[in-house]
């Protein structure tokens, strides 16, 4: 039973922490460990008055730097967003299973919604077989959409208010039957629709899930998702699950 020196809590100075738009921020920190697409980190500023680290997925990794894209949705992420370059942050990771990129063969659709686009950029950059089609759905501000362009065959941007790209819901602009594999991350209602449709059409589908977490390592059983094989931990058994295993 060897301890894994690859995964530990470390304290590091953040390099950048920038506002991208309204309530979307991006933190950049140095990391010697190359994460897998779909993995995440538990992040906690040393000066914040909140208790638990927050799980934030890897948006990108390059030249020893991880980029973490996150939405301010409560007290903890608000405190994290107020941190500045050189502030110290406690970081644990990379955590979770991530996407099995090498197994992705065929025609691929990547469908993201809202802050759910965060883990998909690093995924898209790492798919080597062929460039996927990417569909990104937003409420209004189409943050970080342009970052996907160089890595996809076709990029479809959808906003609910029609201010940029197509108007409506992103799921209305994907023809699922055109693809061998579908990968999704976003609001539950969006992922459920995709999972259901892929199930009906027998198309391979993977979803990256988000849940409230405490430990991040699989011990507290706070982030459980029901699967056909019983309860699974989003932090340890996921966050990426095959649609075959999920009960929609």
């Amino acid at each position, binding site marked *: *039973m060897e*301890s*894994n020196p690859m*995964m*530990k*809590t470390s304290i590091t100075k953040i390099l950048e922490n920038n506002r991208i738009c309204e309530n979307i921020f991006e933190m950049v920190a140095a990391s010697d460990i190359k994460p897998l697409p779909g993995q995440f980190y538990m992040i*906690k500023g040393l000066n914040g*008055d*909140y*208790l*638990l*680290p927050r799980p934030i997925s890897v948006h990108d990794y390059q030249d020893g730097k991880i980029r973490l894209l996150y939405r301010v949705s409560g*007290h*903890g992420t608000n405190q994290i967003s107020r941190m500045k370059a050189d502030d110290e942050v*406690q970081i*644990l990771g990379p955590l979770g299973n991530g996407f099995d990129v090498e197994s992705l063969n065929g025609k691929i659709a990547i469908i993201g919604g809202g802050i759910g686009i965060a883990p998909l950029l690093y995924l898209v950059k790492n798919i080597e077989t062929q460039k996927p089609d990417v569909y990104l759905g937003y409420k209004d501000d189409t943050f970080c959409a342009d970052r996907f362009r160089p890595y996809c065959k076709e990029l479809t941007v959808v906003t609910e208010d029609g201010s940029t790209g197509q108007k409506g819901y992103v799921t209305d602009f994907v023809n699922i039957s055109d693809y061998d594999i579908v990968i999704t991350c976003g609001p539950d209602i969006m992922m459920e629709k995709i999972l259901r449709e892929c199930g009906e059409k027998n198309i391979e589908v993977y979803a990256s899930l988000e849940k*409230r*977490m*405490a*430990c*991040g*390592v*699989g*011990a*507290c*059983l*706070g*982030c*459980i998702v029901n699967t056909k094989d*019983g*309860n699974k931990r989003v932090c*340890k058994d996921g966050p990426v699950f095959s649609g075959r295993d999920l009960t929609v």
Partner: protein
Amino acid sequence: MANLKVEFLGKVFKNPIVAASGTFGFGEEYNEIYDVGLLGGISSKGLTLNSKQGNEGIRLWETPMGLMNSIGLQNPGLESFISREINIMKQYKTNLIANLGGNTLDDYLNGVLLLNDSDVDIIELNISCPNIKAGGMAFGIKADIAYATVKAVRGICGKPLMVKLSPNAESISEMAAACEEAGAEALSLINTINAMAIDIYAKKPVFNNYYAGLSGPAVKPIALRMVHQAAKAVMIPICGMGGISSARDAIEFIMAGASIVQVGTANFVKTDICLDIIRDMEEFLHSQGIRDINEIIGII
């Protein structure tokens, strides 16, 4: 070097720091991060006779310096524990505490019978679960119900028996004394405090069960008071817990009367915090010219 070694229920604890039940699984996940054999002990995830899926809906909710949970005792059941998880825990060269819950007295008795033949070092009897026969009142609320339960369990228990008290007990001193009289050889406290949160936008309670257990730094002063009261009420040793997040907190509990302590929610805040606590306790003793941790147990 100050001595951190403590004897508790006839077992040697290399230091007084034990990972708390429900926050550490069976040690497996944390052992991927650090050698959990460095701890004084590990208290297992709460076990029940049969496996449990746990609660639906939101299971975690952060509060100012606290954490509410409603996991619902999700666990693989005792049969699995004895054939699988216990073998993993045994490799860690630390004291192995089996935390046992139940809904009826028979659940406890059948559970203890299974654990008697296992390799666990100590049984921690969690009497905070609802007692269906007593109208859903927790075994841990009324001293007379706790007394009867502990007495029956003690009669068949082949392992050192530690009873985990609920802070929701009517009187912690009476509860402690009743459990001692019934044959408990040690007490651990406190379990989580019954609490509530409401989602004002959904106009619903956050948790499906309405109430959930509060832990973390927010409960520490209450836990410390209760440990002190229990320690004054009994002669048997005490395992203190409730929001311990630093060596200072741990030393406070020890001074209040705990021989060993459990660290729970703090493991979530910093995965290897138990190692920091052990190191800082040693430094504190050294800086204060205290040669042996045993010198300060219950000095308040």
